[in-house]
């Protein structure tokens, strides 16, 4: 793995943060949100700020922009020096001048970060209108020029498009154009690629690097993804609970982390090396899917957009105790397959046989008794539990539906708490009293309570921090071992798939492009698309957990950002 190797020895320091403290407004007693942050960013440097959610990465960046949410957070100490200008005490009007001109920012979710009711060209141009005296036509030509620099196609058309008419990658390019049009000294990128597919992510990372190279911009890059860090960082600062616990050049950090927290963080990062495949089970397959088709628009309980072929001719089978991963980018149809199997939507054609029963076309009433054979764990742990129900009630719902007496269900629920490593008294609490990872454990317990033959995990770890993600993956592994349940694991993250799947099925635009044993597919992909996916996976050449490069790099070498 090659890291960036810029020589920053003589570069000037663009941003100097010293002893920065941020606290909650009106609650002086509460723990500070930022507790003495020191940070230096030099011209041309890419400084990565990593840490798990809630560690204070975003607050640091907002603070530098002078954009702390008013009435909620306030700077309580320290300084932020932008080449001689003190930001913490700057007046609002002064701050407005600095923004975009000297210091610019791009955000995680380009859909919500762009104003949906204004044309994107106008939104870029607005920066010029606010900060320069350019005439209408000059501003426009400069905007068009900038849009071309970020490699947007068909610039004239896109200029007058609205954000919802563009793809995620295009939107992020607009954001970048907007941020860089006045050639600022410092660009703050707050998780700019997290919301994007891996292939798009790769392009955007390349673009930022290109722009940085061209303009000599300093970049403060905030991310939780160590893979991305490995690809782009010059320097890395690791944050935990409002402090920077470790700072080092990238190679030093990855090969020789000093702090326990950093080590823990790195060890949790999955890599693309597939797990050792488990022995094939002798028992008959738990689920067989044959020629499954799903076309939206033909009605169904939950209606979606009309006439879209979301899944075509999908076939697979899973044996007890084994895991099949479906991987693909957004819109590939992987969730549709999961929902069809669960009969949350009705497949248009094909067969789904679970535990010996063909269920694809049963009526709701006929289906009901078979529901206990297959269960699902959803992506968003904040929405998958009824916020008004205690954990116990959520856990007992399924078994009680199938005739288990309430007492028996309750005692089973208590056992499940132990299984998912939560205290017993968690049963009497409500979902909002738990963290995201804990909620996901509860959701898993709820599914397991049904003693299903098949467990579908639909992006079940995607919303979790990497350390929590690792724990939940371990839990799923345990459960599979204990109960011999078959698992269908839906994910967009090849690294996660590599960690947990015995077999992998790659989907693109509703079609299966490749399927087979995980080791085979991930190490020696047959299909171009699979290869593209693998190559786009950030940090794929580094074995984070072992602080070294992978010795058997999957797929072909090359194409590093």
């Amino acid at each position, binding site marked *: 793995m090659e890291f960036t190797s810029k020589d920053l020895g003589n570069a000037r320091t663009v941003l100097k943060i010293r002893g920065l403290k941020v606290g909650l407004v009106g609650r002086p007693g509460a723990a500070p949100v930022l507790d003495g942050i020191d940070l230096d960013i030099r011209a041309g440097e890419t400084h990565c700020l990593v840490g798990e959610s809630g560690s204070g990465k975003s607050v640091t960046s907002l603070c530098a*922009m002078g*954009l702390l949410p008013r*009435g909620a957070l306030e700077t309580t100490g320290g300084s932020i020096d932008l080449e001689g200008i003190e930001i913490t005490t700057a007046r*609002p009007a002064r*701050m*407005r*001048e*600095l*923004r*975009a*001109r000297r210091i*610019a*920012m791009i*955000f995680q*979710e380009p859909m*919500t*970060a*762009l*104003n*949906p*009711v*204004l044309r994107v060209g106008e939104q870029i141009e*607005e*920066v010029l209108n*606010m*900060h320069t005296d350019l005439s209408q036509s000059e501003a426009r030509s400069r905007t068009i020029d900038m849009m071309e620099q970020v490699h947007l196609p068909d610039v004239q058309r896109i200029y007058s498009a*609205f954000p*919802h008419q563009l793809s995620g990658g295009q939107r992020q390019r607009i*954001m970048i154009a*907007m941020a860089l049009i006045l050639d600022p000294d410092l660009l703050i990128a707050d998780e700019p690629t997290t919301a994007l597919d891996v292939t798009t992510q790769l392009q955007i990372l390349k673009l930022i690097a290109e722009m940085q190279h061209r303009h000599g911009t300093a970049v403060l890059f905030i991310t939780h993804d160590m893979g991305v860090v490995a690809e782009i960082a010059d320097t890395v600062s690791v944050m935990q609970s409002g402090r920077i616990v470790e700072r080092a050049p990238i190679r030093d950090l990855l090969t020789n982390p000093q702090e326990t927290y950093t080590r823990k963080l790195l060890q949790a990062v999955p890599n693309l090396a597939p797990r050792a495949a488990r022995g094939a089970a002798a028992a008959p397959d738990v689920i067989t899917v044959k020629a499954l088709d799903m076309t939206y628009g033909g009605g169904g309980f939950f209606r979606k957009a009309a006439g879209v072929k979301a899944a075509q001719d999908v076939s697979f089978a899973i044996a007890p105790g084994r895991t099949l991963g479906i991987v693909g980018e957004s819109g590939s149809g992987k969730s549709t397959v999961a929902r069809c199997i669960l009969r949350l939507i009705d497949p248009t054609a094909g067969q789904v046989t679970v535990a010996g029963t063909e269920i694809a076309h049963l009526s709701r009433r006929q289906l009901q008794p078979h529901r206990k054979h297959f269960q699902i764990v959803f992506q968003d742990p904040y929405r998958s539990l009824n916020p008004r129900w205690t954990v116990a009630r959520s856990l007992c719902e399924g078994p009680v539906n199938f005739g288990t007496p309430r007492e028996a269900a309750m005692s089973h629920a208590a056992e499940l708490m132990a299984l998912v490593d939560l205290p017993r008294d968690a049963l009497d609490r409500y979902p909002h009293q738990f963290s995201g990872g804990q909620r996901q454990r509860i959701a898993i317990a709820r599914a397991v309570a049904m003693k299903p033959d098949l467990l579908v995990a639909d992006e079940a770890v995607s919303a979790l921090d990497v350390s929590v993600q690792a724990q939940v993956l371990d839990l799923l592994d345990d459960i599979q071992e204990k109960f011999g349940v078959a698992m269908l694991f839906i994910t967009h993250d090849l690294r996660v798939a590599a960690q947990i799947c015995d077999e992998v099925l790659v989907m693109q635009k509703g079609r299966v492009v490749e399927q087979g044993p995980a080791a085979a597919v991930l190490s020696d992909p047959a299909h171009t698309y699979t290869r593209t996916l693998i190559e786009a996976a950030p940090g794929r050449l580094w074995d984070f957990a072992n602080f070294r490069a992978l010795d058997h790099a999957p797929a072909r070498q090359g194409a590093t950002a």
Partner: protein
Amino acid sequence: MFVYILKRVLATIPVMLIVAIFVFLLLRLTPGDPAAILAGDAATPAQLERIRDRLGLNDPLLTQFFTWMGQLLRGDLGVSLLSNTSVAGMLADRLGPTINIALMTITISVALAVPMGVIAAWRHRTWVDFLVMSFSVLGFSVPVFVIGYILIQIFAIELRWVPVQGYKSPGDGFGAFFSRAILPSLTLATIYIALIARMTRASMLEVLGEDYIRTARAKGVRENVVLFRHALRNAAVPILTIIGTGFALLISGVVVTESVFNIPGIGRLTVDAILARDYPVIQAMILLTAGIYVFVNLLVDVSYSFFDPRIRY
């Protein structure tokens, strides 16, 4: 877009039909006899019976209903039982004042309430916010006729800035119209302002928490541009919706205001007609107001796409 509008217009047909049936039944089940009203105090039962016959009130309900529907389909609203004048003519006379006052009310309300709501949201949890919200809640809490009396007392009787009552159409000179229309419009606007300001504030609060507002600020955009260019347009849909549904409130307010300020509009016409059981007039009026309500809300729905390009039909 065109197809959408066409569909929406077609969808109003069953709605209006249900309104028609409902109103018709309600009236025919209501005690009250237009014949008795027409004949006056000294009429004998035989005279009443003859008048009822002539007015068709003795026909079976179904016959009366289909007669009425048939007339409606031919565009004939019928003739007032009492004054013997055509209902269409009465509407033509009476619609103008109500529409003009309503338009003025909406103009005043939007012009005042939207900035109020925007500023309250911008200065969330400050005294400005508190003032705006207090006014909004207060606007809901005082009966509209009391507001009318108070405004008359202050502006017409004590200060003598405007006449106490009456109506002049804008055709008689804008000054004459304005001086008479301003108090009723303000009276009506109180509750409307409260409603819109409240919704603007809520909607703006939501929008101001959105990422693109932060983006705009990160671009160094001035606060007023952030509020009115970036935020308000995004907040527009719920505001428009409340303007549309609030129209029902406006119609209710009109009934009272027209009495207090002696404006010859459709509100008074309807109340008078209900009290006199002048069936053709009541039927036409309720259909008309329902139709206006449906139309206004159709306009509102169609205007969404003007404010929000994501909404396409």
